[in-house]
């Protein structure tokens, strides 16, 4: 049993909304009855289509691998229950209600057989590669937030982090899934954390938890025997759970928004993910169910349930006693970050930590918004120290560049500003839109820059080519000229040489005349002697 340490820094701002956690903590974790149908997503967003190991009509066993991911980051998916595959195709999901992710639909059959498991791994013997491969094969993705594949995150952290943070700060109202899990299975969570400490080479593990979960704190303290583990109890305040903020609060290190904490020597994981890691490695269990909070005033029996992945929301809510008359809307996630579900047919997936089936009385819709009076409450609660009142102004006037200079892209969508805004302005939606347009603008700018760069490169290439051509032509011309000049020079030299060595025509004529004269003279003298003057044959 270890005593909790105190946080190293304080979060700026934040809000204290009513917790509403007791409703779902009245019972231990329960199981839902087997749903007649399961819709299991087998593809991760942004990843290529997986390699399907089954076809429509195939009978599958509980825990059987349905599909193996093809991408570097993709993980395998498993059948949460025995049954028959009835459909394979794109289905809407809570986080992607347009429906673009491939899912396998299974008509379930009651079956008493336990899940098909992988062989347990010995974490000391197996080595990093086998360990990471096991996380992939067991289909483990982050169960807290964005569902990032755990093996990829751990791989990036190997040798680069010295602290592992267990993010048990369930700061959003209504959600108690992590608290319930820690209350009952803290040992498994800590086992998962030790495995990751061992693999990544981190030397310490900080468990961050809020003081509004006393039972979970007690159970964690009882399970903590390792000196590398430290429990850090934070005062309940939203949004402590945002990764960059939690790293700051627990370690005193400020991580820029949007940068991975791994770059700053910290690996952050959710307790549910660590629990799944421990089960997958030590017991070979694939990730086919998770603990989630089903709560809200529209449910007669709210609580934490161990739910099979792929259970349709409507089925799960019915099993908890949904009061159709009171029910106003369902949120996937909590009231501050959750997404309103458009249809009850969507399945619960690995990242679903809460479904809030609420009533109009419990979560009334805000009245129509009024003009901003710049009261600055939003800036007081913004955990990133942005000035939402200014960003709102820039958004209204379409001055995206000014919004960018006020660090719009560092907004983490936590919604604290909109929660306190007395004019009930939908600030988060506006900022999301602004961020989207800013990103589009950036993309367009990048594209334009690229096009311009290409064009300029092309121009430069053409210019170089022309210059080279010109140079070559000039060289050739110069060569030609030189050659001609050389040729001309040669002929002139020849002429000059002939001119200087050969006798002039007059001389030649004179010489010839002289020779003729001489011959004549010789003939005249030879006639009396009858001797030929030179070389003439004797008769």
């Amino acid at each position, binding site marked *: 049993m270890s005593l909790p340490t105190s946080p190293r820094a304080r979060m700026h701002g934040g809000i204290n909304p009513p917790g509403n956690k007791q409703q779902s903590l009245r019972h231990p974790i329960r199981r839902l009855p087997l749903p007649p149908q399961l819709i299991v997503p087998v593809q991760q967003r942004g990843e290529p289509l997986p390699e399907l190991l089954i076809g429509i009509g195939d009978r599958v066993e509980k825990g059987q691998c349905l599909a193996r991911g093809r991408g570097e980051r993709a993980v395998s998916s498993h059948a949460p229950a025995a049954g028959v595959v009835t459909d394979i195709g794109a289905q809407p999901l809570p986080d992607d209600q347009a429906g673009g992710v491939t899912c396998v639909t299974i008509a379930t059959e009651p079956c008493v057989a336990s899940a098909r498991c992988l062989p347990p791994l010995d974490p000391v013997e197996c080595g990093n590669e086998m360990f990471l491969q096991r996380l992939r094969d067991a289909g483990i993705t982050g169960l807290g937030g964005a569902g990032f594949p755990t093996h990829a995150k751990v791989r990036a952290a190997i040798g680069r982090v010295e602290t592992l943070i267990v993010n048990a700060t369930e700061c959003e109202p209504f959600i108690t899934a992590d608290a319930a899990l820690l209350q009952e299975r803290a040992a498994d969570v800590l086992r998962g954390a030790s495995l990751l400490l061992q693999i990544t080479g981190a030397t310490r593990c900080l468990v961050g938890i809020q003081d509004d979960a006393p039972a979970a704190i007690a159970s964690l303290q009882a399970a903590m025997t390792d000196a590398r583990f430290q429990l850090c109890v934070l005062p309940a305040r939203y949004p402590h759970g945002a990764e960059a903020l939690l790293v700051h609060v627990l370690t005193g290190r400020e991580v820029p928004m949007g940068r991975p904490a791994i770059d700053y020597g910290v690996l952050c994981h959710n307790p549910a993910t660590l629990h799944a890691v421990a089960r997958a490695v030590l017991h070979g269990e694939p990730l086919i169910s998770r603990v989630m909070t089903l709560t809200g005033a529209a449910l007669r029996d709210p609580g934490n349930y161990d739910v099979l992945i792929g259970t349709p929301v409507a089925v799960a809510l019915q099993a908890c006693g949904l009061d159709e008359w009171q029910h106003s809307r369902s949120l996937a996630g909590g009231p501050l970050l959750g997404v309103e579900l458009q249809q009850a047919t969507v399945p619960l997936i690995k990242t679903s930590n809460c479904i809030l089936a609420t009533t109009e009385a419990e979560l009334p819709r805000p009245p129509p918004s*009024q003009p901003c009076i710049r009261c600055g409450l939003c800036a007081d609660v913004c955990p990133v120290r942005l000035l939402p009142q200014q960003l709102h102004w820039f958004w209204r006037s379409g001055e995206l560049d000014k919004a960018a200079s006020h660090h719009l892209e560092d907004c983490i969508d936590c919604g604290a500003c909109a929660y306190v805004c007395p004019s009930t302005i939908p600030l988060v939606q506006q900022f999301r839109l602004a961020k989207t347009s800013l990103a589009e603008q950036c993309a367009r700018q990048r594209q334009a820059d690229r096009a311009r760069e290409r064009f300029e490169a092309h121009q430069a290439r053409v210019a170089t080519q022309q210059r080279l051509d010109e140079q070559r032509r000039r060289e050739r011309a110069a060569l030609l000229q030189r050659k001609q000049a050389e040729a001309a020079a040669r002929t002139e030299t020849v002429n000059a040489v002939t001119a200087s060595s050969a006798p002039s025509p007059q001389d030649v004529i004179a010489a010839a005349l002289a020779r003729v004269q001489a011959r004549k003279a010789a003939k005249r003298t030879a006639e009396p002697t009858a001797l030929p003057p030179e070389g003439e044959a004797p008769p």
Partner: protein
Amino acid sequence: MNNRAAAGSPHMHLGHGTSQVMQLVLLATVPGFTALFFCFGWGVLFNLLWVPACALACEAAVLKLRQRPPLPTLRDCSALLTGVLLAAALPPTAPWWLGLLGSMLAIVLAKQLYGGLGFNPFNPAMVGYAALLLAFPVEMTRWLLPRDVGDALPDFATALGLFLGRETLTPIDAYTGATALAVFREELGGQTVAELWQSSPVLGRWSGAGWEWVNGGFLLGGLFLLYRRVIGWQIPATLLGALALLSALCHDGGSSASHGPPLLHLFGGASMLGAFFIATDPVTAATSARGRLVYGALIGSVTFCLRAFSSYPDGVAFAVLLGNFAAPFIDRCTQPRVQGQQQ
């Protein structure tokens, strides 16, 4: 599940609206007005009833002209608050047309012509007050002598006569006199502060007789606003701090060159009203925490300079308007450091 379009997160709200904010500010003016009424009599009450009514009527008329439904906007209580603050600034001898004109200037010119609540660059009540002060200096500076200083406060009928503009019926000069700040500007002459304090009946224990109670009342209301977190501490703290600091520096040990002791400035004129109710108007103030420190200090300093060196005895209204001018620039220069960013 219903068919209404899904709203984005967050789906939860604290539940405090703009009108609650305004109502709390209205509530906080009660002690100040009580002191005003106690010290200056019925005229205060006439202003308090008449000016806000004019402000609401002006707001409704302009909204009608702009073809907006008037009721939802009137219910946000912002026009009512502007009227009440203007009423607090008008002298208790003000005739009805002064209040009407002031409300029109404040609501129509300074607020609605810029687009209504949230879009006005200048504090509407102060625009109305400053314009009246420039246009009607006599009427605007005709303050009554506070209770127990002059002969007597005008009774109900006299005050009503003044309000209805029939001042010729009443010998007004019997009731009026210079305020403490004006006394300090004009009558110090060769005397020391202590001598003046002896000789002048309008000076009370720390500041102007009666005025110290009025300022105390607004201070009390301001502390209530701070406690309820309707306003931040930054603007009042630096405004009053700058005022106190500058007056202490120029106090000169109470010689005849003094511009008055710090307590005179803090509890004289419109200091507390300005610090807690006027300068803290969020629409026209600087908006970041550091910006508000600068903004408050600027208004405090300018107020002191106007009191000490200009021809007006008080300068809160002009100082606030100057602060409004500077607010966007202050905001630009005082952006807070974003989490995770290196300085």
